[in-house]
């Protein structure tokens, strides 16, 4: 009898603890997910009358839209930053892992671009890429001057062939010393020392030690970073493009999420935008599944 009473007491207490978060979760996450799913089968401009049911027409229109595929291509193209940035993160982490003086200093400096990312940084890079006053083209010209050549940097953000590389370079700068480098550093510190000792006994040089010991040992981290970056990459590209290029020139920097923003909040095509969101979700879901299949064996959520 008493234990029954204490169980009830625990249940009541538990619901009390849960309530504030659960309410917010229902109102701002789980019900909107449902609503967004239903909305994706309707046509609604938010102003005139209630949404009208159009079945799968939003999805059919979206997948048959060449522009959508072009924006997908842009999004994937911009993800070229991921492998380069990851390689850079690994090199920096390897260098930091040498137990030299000044580790905290370097780690702090490398983290600065990540920590201050945002509008200020995009404005700064708009200036850096400016063809007349920007530091990048000035440096290219000076470098050419030293070589006795007349070099002119491209008109980065206003040239549809250079706008994406420009965003990629900036993205590498932002991410190379950030989260991924710290994850790599933690992984490197977790590699058992005796594996290196054994390799040394076998006469392996530094390069061989890296490929035979380090690389396989940190491969779970590499996999984790790659999947998370790809998942992030599909949702990325709004902030920098909005500030720096406005999605142009010739829509060369419009990504999936930018397209969604335009459809939803510029043109008020709410149903169509919801369909974009769900296609985006499907893509991300595939990559999450890959990650769960890989980690399912080692990570326990319960």
């Amino acid at each position, binding site marked *: 009898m008493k234990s029954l009473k204490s169980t009830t007491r625990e249940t009541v*207490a538990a619901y009390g603890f849960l309530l504030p978060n659960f309410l917010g979760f229902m109102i701002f*996450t789980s019900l909107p997910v449902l609503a967004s799913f239903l909305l994706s089968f309707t046509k609604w401009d938010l102003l005139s009358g209630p949404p009208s049911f159009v079945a799968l027409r939003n999805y059919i229109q979206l997948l048959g839209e060449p522009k959508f595929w072009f924006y997908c291509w842009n999004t994937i193209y911009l993800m070229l930053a991921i492998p380069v940035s990851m390689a850079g993160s690994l090199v920096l982490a390897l260098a930091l892992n040498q137990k030299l003086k000044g580790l905290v200093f370097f780690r702090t400096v490398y983290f600065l*671009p990540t920590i201050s990312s945002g509008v200020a940084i995009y*404005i700064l890079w708009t200036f850096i890429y400016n063809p007349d006053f920007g530091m990048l083209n000035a440096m290219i010209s000076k470098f050419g001057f030293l070589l006795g050549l007349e070099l002119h940097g491209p008109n980065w953000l206003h040239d549809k062939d250079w706008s994406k590389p420009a965003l990629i370079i900036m993205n590498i700068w932002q991410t190379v010393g950030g989260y991924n480098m710290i994850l790599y550093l933690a992984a490197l510190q977790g590699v058992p020392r005796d594996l290196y000792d054994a390799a040394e006994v076998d006469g392996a040089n530094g390069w061989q030690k890296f490929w035979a010991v380090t690389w396989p040992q940190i491969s779970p981290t590499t996999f984790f970073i790659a999947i998370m970056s790809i998942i992030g990459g599909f949702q990325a590209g709004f902030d920098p493009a909005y500030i720096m290029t406005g999605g142009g020139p010739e829509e060369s920097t419009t990504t999936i999420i930018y397209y969604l923003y335009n459809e939803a909040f510029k043109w008020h095509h*709410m149903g169509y935008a919801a369909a974009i969101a769900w296609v985006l979700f499907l893509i991300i879901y595939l990559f999450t599944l890959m990650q769960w299949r890989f980690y399912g064996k080692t990570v326990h959520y319960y």
Partner: protein
Amino acid sequence: MVIHTNIQSREQAEAQAKVLAVKQLKRQQRQRQILKKIGVYLVLGIGAVSMIAPFLWMLTTSLKEPGSVYSFQRRWWEEWLPLSFYWKNYVNAFYVVPFGLFYLNSIFVVLCTTACQVATSALAAYAFARLHFPGRDKIFFAYIATMMIPGAVTMIPVFILLRYLGWIDTYRAMILPAAFSAYGTFMLRQFFLTLPKDLEDAAKIDGCSYLGIFWRIILPLSKPALATLTTFTFMGTWMSFMWPLIVMNTHKKFTLPIGLAYFKSLHGTDWTLLMAGSMMMVFPILLVFIFCQRFFVEGIKLTGIKG
């Protein structure tokens, strides 16, 4: 005797040669180590310079007189080092747009969001980690499942909801949707699970209520995890751009990120002014980071490993 000394001197010579060889080997090793050290520092140094250079350029430009942004006549260090101090750019930035208001708005929104998110996450995480109630695992699974749904999916219905409630262009519209986080709940629950249970059991026997246990035992033991979540939420909200852009219209209610974007749309080519504005946004966050670095690094490791 002669032979003896001969042998002795030969032994001595051999020993000497050995010592020399070892010394040389050691010297070679040391040289290689020094070379390696130089190489590593070179990599680190190049990395550091390329990270800092744009910031330096930002600072220098923000202190230049308008109209003297770049010229080929100057020497390179005059281009890079802040040699002129035209502080008026910072003052002028405040005249062009209400920067002071942007600051206050940002601080208000960030504090409210962070406090709400950390509090509700901690409460719910305690229920998930320690209490038994019907439907616990199902609800928790729903939380985890929504973590992989992109924000883009919920953005549209939440906007419609806020519009229906008439909350568009209010601080509530920026704060409330970000005040509850499945991710924060998940992270804190994982941390609470690692805490030893003995203390709680002892407190329970002494007749301590659940709220008492939560307040006096769980929270004090979880300071590092709470600090990590606070830091992450703080930084994330400070930089949040897309959502405020969607729900806010009145300039006076803008937070710094959208305020700065608005500033750029007004004065897109006044680079000295723009750099001064950007400096003002970056500077506080750098300060916070330098003080909270530890929580950041620990937090990344924690979440990175837990997946």
